[in-house]
């Protein structure tokens, strides 16, 4: 930019004129006429494709035709415009000065002085007023957070520690059928829920509540024909070889959905934690820190498998209040 540009406006100044013959105004293309024809062709094709998109939309053709036509149309349109800009418009090189952003030392001092000296006057004269105002604004800032956060949801309380399982709760499958002695053969596995979380006649299919799906989900495995003890103190927990563990991985709460039948390992597909079914689901591999909690089972008088007691610890991943 030349100096004449920075003169005050409104006075007519002679503007510097460049001739069309100035090489700065020239094309980058060696054969501009040929490039121009090519761009004409590209634009015409673009128009055809974009019109085709319109037709395709009107006729409700499939999505790949819609995307293909509009994609090709816009690509050609963009390509033509870019080629126009690149080959047929003034390329320069042009130069522009960088004006330093920094102000003069006087202007800086004036700014700093305004900030420091004016505020000094304010603070000296009205110290108490300023302090009170700042206190009020600060307290408002803090208390404003409370409704913003606290209204969002309840405090956790014990809600993270409990599940829907309690003494006598019958285990049902996803269709709401109770589990009997013959439901699984040794080596078999299934996912079970507390009976009251599976609503059988809600529609064409049973509906499992969020609580049942996300928190109470339990994996039931049969490993032998006899009562099975996974760990000392759990002698009565596995009647007829039925063993139940919380299906929530203790790492991040994914469902432990894979079962390696030969090795009798429950595997979490998210981060490959592996839990040994026989010794109380102690993690044998991966980032999971704790065994899956085991649900104590019993057969009730109807011959249905039911819980002896709630889980003896919170299910799922760890959190600060978990003891």
């Amino acid at each position: 930019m030349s100096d004449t540009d920075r003169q005050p406006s409104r006075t007519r100044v002679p503007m510097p004129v460049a001739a069309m013959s100035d090489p700065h105004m020239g094309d980058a293309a060696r054969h501009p006429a040929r490039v121009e024809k090519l761009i004409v062709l590209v634009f015409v094709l673009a128009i055809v494709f974009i019109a085709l998109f319109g037709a395709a939309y009107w006729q409700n053709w499939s999505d790949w035709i819609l995307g293909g036509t509009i994609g090709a149309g816009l690509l050609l349109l963009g390509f033509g415009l870019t080629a126009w800009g690149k080959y047929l418009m003034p390329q320069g090189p042009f130069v522009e000065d960088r004006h330093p952003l920094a102000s003069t030392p006087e202007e800086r001092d004036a700014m700093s002085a305004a900030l420091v000296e004016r505020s000094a006057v304010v603070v000296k004269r009205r110290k108490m007023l300023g302090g009170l105002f700042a206190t009020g604004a600060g307290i408002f800032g803090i208390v404003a957070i409370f409704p913003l956060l606290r209204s969002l949801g309840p405090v956790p309380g014990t809600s993270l520690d409990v599940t829907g399982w309690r003494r006598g709760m019958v285990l049902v499958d996803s269709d709401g059928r109770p589990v009997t002695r013959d439901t699984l053969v040794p080596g078999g596995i299934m996912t079970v829920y507390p009976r009251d979380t599976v609503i059988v006649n809600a529609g064409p299919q049973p509906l499992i509540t969020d609580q049942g799906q996300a928190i109470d989900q339990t994996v039931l495995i049969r490993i032998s024909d006899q009562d099975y003890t996974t760990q000392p103190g759990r002698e009565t927990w596995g009647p007829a070889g039925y063993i139940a563990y919380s299906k929530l991985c203790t790492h991040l709460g994914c469902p432990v959905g894979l079962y390696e039948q030969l090795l009798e390992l429950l595997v979490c597909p998210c981060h490959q934690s592996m839990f040994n079914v026989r010794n109380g689901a102690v993690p044998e591999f991966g980032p999971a820190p704790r065994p899956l909690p085991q649900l104590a089972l019993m057969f009730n008088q109807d011959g249905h498998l039911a819980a002896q007691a709630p889980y003896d610890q919170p299910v799922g991943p760890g959190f600060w209040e978990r003891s």
Partner: protein
Amino acid sequence: MSDTATTKRSRRASMGPYGSVGKIVGELDDRLGVAKGGRIFLDKIFPDHWSFMLGEISLYSFVVLLATGIFLSLYYVPSTHQVIYHGSYAPLDGQWVSEAFRSTVNISFDVRGGLLVRQMHHWAADIFTGSIVVHMARIFFTGAFRKPRELNWTIGLLMLILAIFEGFIGYSLPDDLISGTGLRIGYSIAESIPFVGSYLVTFLWGGPFPGTGIIIPRFFIIHVLIIPLVLLGLLSAHLGLLVRQKHTQFRGEGRTEENVVGSPMFPTFMAKTTGFLLMVTAATALLGAFAQINPIWQFGSYDASKISYAVQPDWYMGWLDGALRIMPSWEFMNFGHTIPFEVFLPAVVFPGLIFTICFMWPALERRVTGDNELHNLLDRPRDRPKRTAAGAAMFALLFTLFAASSTDVLANFFKVSLNATLWFFRIAVIAIPIIVGLVTYQLCKEMQGVHGIGKRKRPVVVHRSADGEYSTTPAEPRPDDVHSELDPEPVPVRIDIEPLSNGGATVPESSPTGVRQVTR
């Protein structure tokens, strides 16, 4: 006939030499005073380099995201209320699905063009985050973040973090099996934060996972309003600072710290960049048309007790998933409290640390080098071996972690044990960044010493003497061998298209440079 022609001509003459454009400019200038500032804006110079295009990809994919997102928001229903699906997709007929899932399947099958727009939106989101990272790498390795541009570096980083959250939240909205699992993991990560974690999650979700069905509506408003609004604000600041501080440029003939050399905003840059906007849009449309992404109808509605094999997040979360996988199972349990370090360290502390380093880098570099000067000329990465090595090591770390997020797939594919794969990555995540950093440093040092590096090589002619001895001599230079540029000149205010009445220079019939004459 001739009367109207005369009237037209005389009206045109009365408008002055610039016709209706001149009139509009005049009317606008009377009210807003746009002429001077507007022209300076049209004259703004953009230096040319392919790498300056990377940020434009981010900008234009964001435009695509806004446009496609508006379309999607007209059909999407943010609710986890369970309903029975009856729609075009037969395999799901009669099944319980959430309203969010049903509306997303409807967009894919029953809304005209809906699948295309949905897939464009997803592809554009992946391109958006990807181009931000690559753009950021360009800024980092060329030192464009140095004074006076530290603030724009910070704004860019904030936008990257927001883009990652925006992507994760948008990915969760269809409420399908895969994204639901991702959401469950996100919940557990937030829950792992000591002291506040359990409060945070019950506040956000309205109770223990999956909460009271409030999270999807909340995510929806965050996804379509809050984050886009903040992104738009930051984007304006980002571009505003770019205009105010002007573009950086690579060293070259006529280029100094005090000038900018390139092509003008109008018409050259405007044509090229508008063309590029169209091409980026076209790329997302073609990807959306021909490359399937996130076919949620195959996964089914989210059921917290179901899961699929090879669960992986979108690519920009992969590094965190990799970190979670290779972390040992260290959990602190004592004094009646639990700190799940196996989650808290890799998924909260580690990304916090990485981004803190990124935010601090300009200040750190200023502290270490003692360089407090203003910089407008860019560095060649090889000329700053330590910075380049640090950046390369950082990328090596992130790429290794990204690869570690598919340990199970890799173990299956290469038929090695999962245990071996895990331990390979545990060692690799420390070793590879160190090796990459050292090798990069050495490469930079070596490249600095090479004569004529970065210059075009002159061809040589090889001679064989009668004794069988070979020798070379440089070939005759050809016109293309030497890259020469005109001296940069200011953008001319006026161009003499045809001699005007006030007497401009006459245009020669055919100019020596092959410029065609333009006539009105």
